[in-house]
């Protein structure tokens, strides 16, 4: 199959086959980062623009590294110092970037749906690097890629996602991607952090982490989002670490080879103990490495789709 979408907005919008194509493409790009000269000319002459409306280091840098390993030119726009500060609308900013003949906008935005809106307004590719609580497709893709690498398959796996599911784009993208590939997903959170009707995605819900860990092949531990304060739930108030924190003690009761993932940055001692973060089950740094291959694949595929169209 071939890739036809100019944008990557979310995993909800992809078929199982499209997700598999990204994973397979990422697999072939992974080797590039192990070379002496970590570069292929796949996107030579292309320009990718990192447009980040929310602070992010790891995602932005990961995209930048991915684009550069494909030989694309990368421009970083920090919105605090651009005309966005002067009140320029998102669509105007996008159209200006398009007028500069950039090929791809990689956008992080605090409003859900911002990437959908931008993609609709522009002819160039838009890659969603996280929009509000909506989706963070490349994070989920790298999570799934890592799982597949570790366990050989996704179908039939029991995956638990624990944390503030209600406000998590990482959770949503993981749920869509994993369920499409046939995994059994359980989301685990205090009841007030489980979004309405989330079970309609196919995920099961739980508010008891020990039960949710029992048959899990992997646990994806979300960051508690201090910076997105909703005035409702603070980890302390929920006694979060005690009730939901992933500790060695809890893991001891789970499957022996359970994989522990985290999208980073970790709040040590809040959602996860240091012992677990640095322990044998943790694949957290491998996730970061795989992020480059996955993002290379995404940038490569969306550029190809545009070339086929024009």
């Amino acid at each position, binding site marked *: 199959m071939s890739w036809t979408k100019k944008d990557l907005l979310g995993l909800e919008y992809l078929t199982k086959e499209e997700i598999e194509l990204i994973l397979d493409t990422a697999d072939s790009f992974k080797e590039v980062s192990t070379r002496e000269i970590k570069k292929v000319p796949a996107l030579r002459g292309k320009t990718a623009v990192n447009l980040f409306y929310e602070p992010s280091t790891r995602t932005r840098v990961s995209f930048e590294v991915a684009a550069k390993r494909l030989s694309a030119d990368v421009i970083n726009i920090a919105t605090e110092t651009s005309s966005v500060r002067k009140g320029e609308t998102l*669509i105007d900013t996008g159209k200006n970037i398009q007028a500069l003949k950039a090929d791809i906008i990689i956008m992080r935005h605090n409003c*859900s749906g*911002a990437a*959908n809106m931008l993609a609709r307004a522009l002819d160039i590719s838009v890659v969603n690097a996280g929009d*509000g609580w909506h989706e963070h497709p490349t994070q989920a893709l790298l999570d799934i890629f890592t799982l597949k690498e570790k366990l050989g398959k996704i179908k039939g796996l029991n995956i638990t996602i624990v944390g503030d599911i209600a406000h998590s784009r990482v959770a*949503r993208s993981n749920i869509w991607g994993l369920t499409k590939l046939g995994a059994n997903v359980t989301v685990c959170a205090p009841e007030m952090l489980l979004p*309405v009707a*989330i079970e309609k995605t196919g995920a099961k819900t739980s508010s008891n982490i020990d039960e949710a860990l029992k048959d899990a092949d992997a646990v994806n531990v979300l960051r508690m989002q201090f910076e997105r304060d909703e005035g409702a739930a603070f980890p302390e108030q929920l006694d979060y670490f005690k009730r939901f924190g992933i500790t060695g003690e809890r893991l001891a009761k789970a499957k022996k080879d359970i994989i522990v993932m985290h999208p980073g940055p970790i709040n040590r001692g809040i959602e996860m103990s240091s012992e677990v973060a640095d322990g044998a089950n943790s694949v957290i740094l491998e996730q970061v490495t795989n992020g480059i291959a996955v993002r290379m694949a995404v940038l490569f595929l969306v550029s190809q789709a545009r070339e086929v169209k024009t």
Partner: protein
Amino acid sequence: MSILIKGGRVIDPANKIDALLDILIEDNKIYKVAKNIKAQANSIIDATGKIVAPGIIDMHVHLRQPGREDKETVATATVAAAKGGVTTVLAMPNTNPAMDCLENVELSRGIIAKDARVNVLICGTITRGRLGKELSDIAALKKSGVYAISDDGCSVDSDELMFEALKEAKQSEVLTICHSEDRKLSSKGVINMGFNSTRLGLRGISNESEYKRVARDIELAEKSGASVHIAHVSCRQSVEIIAKAKKKGVKLTCETAPHYFSLTEDALLGYDTNMKMNPPLRSSEDVAAIKQGLKDGTIDVIASDHAPHTENEKDIEFERAEFGVVGLETELSAGITELVDPKLLDWNQLFEKIAFNPARILGLDSGSLSEGRPADIVVISGDKEWTVKKNELVSKSKNSAFLGRVLKGVVDYTICDGKIVYVRQLSVH
């Protein structure tokens, strides 16, 4: 000035008429409704094959003037109204300044006298500045000629203050229109709460935030004996609560808007800000309940909640975009397409909801084709289809939830107060 409308299918719920008749208009009034009227007239309209009905009375319109003339003006809104077959609008008071005192009502009346193409009635506020803190001088507002009071856009949160308002409204014999929303529950929500709000990552607005306040407003209506009209009913439980109260004999009427029976929350899946309104588009179950409520008479009125916003306020990130959609130019066609065409309502029932009942509720002479009544009439090609296009909307703002939709029913003539205020231009191709 006389107009003879010949050979149309006359729909008049006031007189239970659905027949091929002629209508003669003289001196701004309906002079005669009969078969084969032989009379001289200044204009003759051949209505063969067309529907002839009372002009639409839209009880819920935001004109935006004074204060937000960049969104809409009395002039542009009433041109849009005429195009949509609307001959009377009730102007909501959330202008700047708000219609909370005699002076402001006079200001508005001056603009209307100068610019309005159709009848514009003024709605006053319940509280000063619509702040929900202290009551407007409701008796003075009534004396100044307002047809209703409402803090539309906001609900009066305090039970005590709302009760005081309703007692005053009863004393002054003025209708109170309730925007029934508990902000503590709807909070920062932007779309219906449910699976769609979850998958889109947007804050939800629960049905509860509406129906709990509907229940409170009805309770206070009953206690005070005032006439209350619930605006923009959108969810199943509200319909149920209203039906129950009506059965009990509470002086209560209500309206819904075309988008609440035409569209479900699934229209939001692409983050289209033209689908963002308050209350929000609800689930298919709610839409079914709204339709049923229209059919069984629980819902008395269809009103547009015409809420113009500029592109700058709509073509932005979803959660930052304004709530509201324009509706004057599409409400009749939406009613025909979604209600008459599928035979949920017949023509008479549709015009009951969009003309006769609003007239009755507001105490107007219009809304009927009885002889001697004001000549507010619409002539419609009921079967003609059209596509809603942004550049063909005449309202100053283009934020329609029906853009791109094919609707049935096109207005050929709108006659307001005996004058032809709109004639459809035959398209030249």
